[in-house]
């Protein structure tokens, strides 16, 4: 549970309340595993207000059963933040966030195989002047790499408790919990020499931070040091800005140093690493020579110019195969249960508007979205698996060169690829992209990748394409591939365009750690999958329910007299009228008002187009057998007797579906991930606008060519 903001570390209540630990560490050091091991399933996952950074708070119990609050801060390499994630870690530790009380104590976790770089963050954290416990994780892997880490020497050098640990196996947890429940944690013996040229600036900034920003003296020193490292720091919503006085002092020093040619930030980093180097020299010994590690041998294959591509291809094919294979059963199950639920409500309630609202509005609408949940969960599972094994970083490494052509980096690859199945997990997976602009561009273009909900529409249109019966399989495949290629091309084109115009940023970087391969912990991956799935259901659920009810209302009202067939009921409903109103706008694309109704109801999910068409054209259709609907479509006519679904109209309609934003769940998720309505509205407009233009060009061009 998050602590109320009014309780601060210095308040009188501090002594009696539950101690608050912040868990801090580099990415890939086993932090999540330790957090899960400490707190079990007693976790609360949410968001920091104003930013899309995951907030995880859990309760651990000491060996005596005392509850301890643990905040799992986002992984960071440095407190000089480069991403919104790192900015949250920095701001919570510096007590800059009003929504999160500064932690009483800090749990720093480091990877023992890679001590020097991991200690850099620890070094910054020790400056904060709070009690710190150092968790030395992955001791088994260090031993395997021929490294001996002397725990006592580290304790001696740093003056804080150091606990050797293998979080994956639960080794060292008891010792850690004992240390965490100690009442008298020592403060670090943390002496390091701030370079002489910079020391006066640190004292001046510290004094100003105490006097004008209300900081405690030790925190003020840490903040002063950070301000000097972090010349262009990322500020995130919810953190308090610097006072004018402090900002002024900072500017004066920076101008002076720039004139003198002093590299202030660089020399601060250097002196920290000098101090770390001395500590590591005492504590770490290379005791055994080891050959190439398992990771080296895997990488020789996985990033090989030839085999690397093959492996990437195989992994991606497996991903899509398993989505379509494993999702089918649960999807039918959900479908069946929602239908049964609607039926039993129909039996139990007297006929009327309320019953229809519940069955046709709420149950059908929510069911129509939840049916995608199995796919979404499987994708989350795969993304989690790729992340926790370390392969995700290799995929980004291999794809970076291609992604750089449009101004993105390799980290955008997996989110964009996932969007072929469903844009929702793709968009939620963009959180691994550090640069906020790159992340936004990826979110904006991801829904252009043809998702699985477009498949039923493509299939129906392909079936209706050829007037007489069966379409040759090769033609089918060819058209389908064209649609997928068109969406992919569109996504890359718009990424390129947005990076050059709207979201111009610093040249993209690809500074990324390639973590050693690790066996995934299925428990952690599954937990992550359910957290993400639940987040989607909870956050998008209200928007989806709202839009479902609106869409139901539009197609059910105004009511026709009893006994009117569904086709006519829909025709004279608000949706039908909207279709009529839409007709002048879509007539240049070759669509009539009846197709217009389908475009409107597709907002629930694109595949709803198919069921709408079967109501509109009064055909009984099922998902796997579109034949009766196909016949109905082929015989549909304009009032003047021309056929409606000409091959050209079918193609145009598919092209419209490739580009148009017609998915309320995606809109809800984009709103969630960009913190407002601005970007989802922009996205809907640019995608649907492109869809209209492309369809117009194809339809009118096709007509001019005589189709």
């Amino acid at each position, binding site marked *: 549970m998050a602590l109320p903001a009014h309780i601060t570390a210095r308040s009188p209540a501090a002594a009696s309340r539950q101690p608050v630990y912040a868990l801090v560490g580099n990415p890939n050091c086993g932090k999540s595993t330790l957090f899960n091991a400490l707190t079990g399933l007693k976790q609360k996952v949410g968001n920091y207000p104003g930013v899309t950074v995951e907030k995880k708070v859990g309760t651990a119990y000491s060996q005596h059963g005392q509850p301890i609050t643990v905040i799992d801060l986002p992984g960071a*390499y*440095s407190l*000089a933040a*480069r991403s919104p994630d790192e900015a949250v870690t920095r701001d919570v530790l510096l007590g800059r966030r009003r929504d999160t009380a500064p932690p009483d104590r800090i749990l720093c976790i480091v990877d023992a*195989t*890679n001590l*020097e*770089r991991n200690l*850099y963050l620890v070094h910054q954290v020790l400056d904060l002047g709070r009690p710190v416990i150092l968790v030395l994780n992955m001791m088994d892997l260090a031993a395997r*790499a021929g490294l001996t880490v002397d725990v006592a020497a580290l304790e001696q050098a740093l003056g804080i408790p150091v606990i050797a640990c293998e979080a994956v196996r639960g080794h060292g947890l008891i010792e850690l919990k004992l240390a965490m429940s100690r009442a008298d944690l020592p403060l670090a013996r943390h002496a390091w020499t701030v370079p002489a040229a910079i020391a006066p600036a640190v004292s001046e900034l510290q004094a100003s931070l105490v006097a004008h920003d209300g900081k405690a003296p030790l925190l003020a020193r840490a903040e002063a040091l950070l301000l000097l*490292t972090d*010349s*262009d720091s990322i500020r995130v919503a919810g953190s308090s800005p610097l006072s004018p006085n402090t900002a002024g002092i900072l500017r004066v020093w920076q101008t002076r140093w720039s004139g003198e040619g002093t*590299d202030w*930030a*660089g020399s601060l*980093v*250097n002196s920290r*690493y000098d101090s770390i180097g001395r500590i590591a020299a005492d504590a770490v010994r290379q005791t055994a020579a080891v050959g190439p590690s398992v990771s080296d041998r895997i*990488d020789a294959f996985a*990033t*090989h*110019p*030839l085999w*690397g*591509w093959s492996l990437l291809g195989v992994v991606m094919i497996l991903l899509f195969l398993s989505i379509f294979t494993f999702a089918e059963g649960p999807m039918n199950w959900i479908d069946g249960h929602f239908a049964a639920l609607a039926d039993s409500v129909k039996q139990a309630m007297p006929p009327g508007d309320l019953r229809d609202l519940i069955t046709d509005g709420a149950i059908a609408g929510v069911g129509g979205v939840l049916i995608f949940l199995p796919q979404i969960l499987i994708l989350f599972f795969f993304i989690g698996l790729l992340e926790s094994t370390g392969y995700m*970083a290799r995929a980004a*490494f*291999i794809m*970076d*060169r*291609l992604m*750089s052509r449009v101004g993105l980096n*390799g980290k955008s690859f997996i989110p964009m690829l996932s969007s072929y199945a469903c844009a929702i997990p793709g968009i939620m997976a963009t959180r691994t992209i550090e640069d906020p602009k790159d992340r936004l561009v990826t979110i904006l273009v991801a829904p252009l990748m043809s998702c699985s909900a477009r498949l039923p529409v493509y299939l129906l249109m392909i079936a209706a394409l050829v007037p007489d019966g069966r379409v040759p399989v090769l033609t089918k495949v060819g058209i389908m591939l064209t649609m997928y290629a068109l969406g992919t091309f569109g996504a890359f084109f718009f990424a390129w365009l947005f990076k050059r115009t709207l979201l111009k940023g*610093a*040249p993209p*970087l*690809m*500074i*990324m*750690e*390639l*973590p*050693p391969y690790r066996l995934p912990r299925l428990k952690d991956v599954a937990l992550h999958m359910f957290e993400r799935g639940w987040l989607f259901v909870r956050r998008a659920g209200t928007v989806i329910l709202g839009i479902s009810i609106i869409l139901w209302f539009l197609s059910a009202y105004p009511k026709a007299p009893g006994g009117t067939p569904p086709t006519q009921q829909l025709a004279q409903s608000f949706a039908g009228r909207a279709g009529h109103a839409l007709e002048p706008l879509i007539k240049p694309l070759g669509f009539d008002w009846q197709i217009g109704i389908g475009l409107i109801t597709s907002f629930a999910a694109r595949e709803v187009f198919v069921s709408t068409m079967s109501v509109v054209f009064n055909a009984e259709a099922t998902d796997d057998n579109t034949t009766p609907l196909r016949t109905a479509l082929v015989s549909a006519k304009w009032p003047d007797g021309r056929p409606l679904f000409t091959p050209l109209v079918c193609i145009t309609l598919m092209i419209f579906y490739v580009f148009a934003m017609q998915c309320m769940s995606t809109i809800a998720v984009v709103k969630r991930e960009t913190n407002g309505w601005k970007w989802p509205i922009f996205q809907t407009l640019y995608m649907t606008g492109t869809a209209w233009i492309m369809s117009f060009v194809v339809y009118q061009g096709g007509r001019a060519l005589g189709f």
Partner: protein
Amino acid sequence: MNLPPPAESLLPGQAAPIPLSMLGVGCHATVRELPKVGSAFLRLREMGLLAGTVVTLVRAAPLGDPIEIKVRGYRLTLRKTEAAQILVEPVG
């Protein structure tokens, strides 16, 4: 794009600094100089790439960019545009 030169152009003991992007695959080098400005180089410093640090060029990505280096016992990738601005001195 600059491709790494063949390894034989980097003789043992050769002292002239070269850009990291020109280091041959499998070669070791000591970092001599990083640009002072730019958040990319600050982050590279914070990740342990400092003057005097020994690095090994592990490989280039299948399409030639980015490159993978070994520094302080872990693997780091960076693009050649950044690597071209880092001067290193090849060692034996």
